């Protein structure tokens, strides 16, 4: 597969300014946290997290960025917005989770870089095709993960979708349409 743009197209520039835009901005988002734990109690995925969300906000405010970025907690946020809805301080907690994903993806930790690949491969597909091509995206994701067992996990689903005529290449009328938009976003985020 020939790719005309780098695989991980947002990472290099993001890393340059992640410290400035990243950590301080996230700390401001959760600055008013009063440690009530409503977020943790509301989270459908908290059972699988190593740091409870409440605990993670406090660690961020203490400046324990390294420990937070090494945790899997923010990668387990599925953006259900229940914590954001219920937070008595009205804090944008789901946005903070997403910002942590961006900060972690821009860092050097290889485990975090790998966890970010799913999203980066998806956006690469969008950049190329204008509208995401589900099958092409999953194929390039499997390739990027270098895990021969991963595709097998999704084989039953793939076969089901194939049988239903749902695995097909979409139209390509919008191919390349988003190239200029992505390039502009890249240059603006690199410059900020």
């Amino acid at each position, binding site marked *: 597969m020939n790719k005309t743009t780098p695989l991980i197209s947002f990472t290099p520039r993001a890393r340059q300014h992640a410290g400035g835009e990243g950590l301080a901005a996230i700390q401001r988002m959760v600055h008013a946290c009063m440690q009530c734990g409503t977020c943790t109690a509301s989270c459908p*995925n908290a059972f*699988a997290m190593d740091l409870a969300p409440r605990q993670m906000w406090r660690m961020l405010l203490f400046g324990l960025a390294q420990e937070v970025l090494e945790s899997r907690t923010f990668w387990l946020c599925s*953006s259900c917005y229940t914590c954001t809805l219920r937070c008595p301080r009205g804090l944008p907690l789901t946005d903070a989770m997403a910002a942590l994903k961006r900060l972690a993806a821009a860092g050097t930790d290889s485990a975090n870089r790998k966890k970010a690949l799913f*999203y980066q491969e998806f956006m690469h597909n969008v950049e190329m095709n204008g509208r*995401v091509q*589900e099958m092409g995206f999953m194929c390039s*994701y499997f390739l990027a993960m270098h895990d021969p067992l991963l595709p097998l996990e999704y084989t039953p689903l793939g076969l089901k979708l194939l049988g*239903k005529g749902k695995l*097909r290449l979409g139209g390509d009328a919008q191919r390349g349409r988003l190239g200029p938009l992505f390039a502009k976003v890249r240059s603006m985020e690199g410059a900020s």
Partner: protein
Amino acid sequence: MKYAYYPGCSLEASAEEYDVSCREVLQRLGVELAEIPDWTCCGASAAEPVSRLLTLALPARNLALAEREAAGLDMLVPCSACYLNHLRVTRECAQDRSLSGRINEVLGTEGLGYAGKVRVRHLLDVLAADIGPEAVAAAATRRLEGLTVAPYYGCQALRPYVLFDDPEHPRSMTPLITALGATVLDWDMGGRCCGASLMATRKDVALSSVAAILDAAEGADVIVTVCPMCQMNLEAYQKQARQGSPVSVLYLTQLLGLAFGLSDGQVLLGKNLAVTDALKSKLRACAAAGNAMQTTPTGG
């Protein structure tokens, strides 16, 4: 009634049955759709972990196209993730003019501009508020008597922006379902997360959410959804999630279409991954009763 229509990428591929049934049902309800020309991906749930500006610029492009090509129309979105992405731009730009400026700087590369004039509406909001249960009942030719329906709303149609339903105890589907003669399952999982894209990144965690939802729906004949991601998570991984009996999962628009007298083929029922024989025979019984009602003149 006329709306600018943003189907989104899923509805062109794995959720084709949602697109087809949505168009069919809305047409029968007297709604005209003007698909936004040259629309592109909104970023789904993948843009946000990659770039904040991209998260806003991608949907803004579609909003700008809607303003230019379908001026004055509300934008109707059937996918909850697409809905939230577009809605977020309208909300954040309304509060922050410098953000609006940055987004327009991006859109300027294509000669587009976003002026903040489009109102973004979820399909469910349009069905419940603009069309309403009376019009739905009037369009129905089959009563779905004896059918118990579990309405599943998911997350992003309800939260974080609370616009048309209770974000903790959603109920906007209730009058639409009862208008068809069906019974609504009393459950508290309607707004519980399905796991969303964790199904790709942490399948074990997403499966536990799916199992909890399916278990709670045991008393229902069918779960109905209003989002392609919720639909896929609930229908495609049932055997991996739990050992219980299979649960049928349809899009709300497919159920409406069947009640409106559309055939299985017209709502692409064959594309669904979880439709039990028990549901099929119940639907056939409802159809037969509907036909009998139409052909046999009733006295009085």
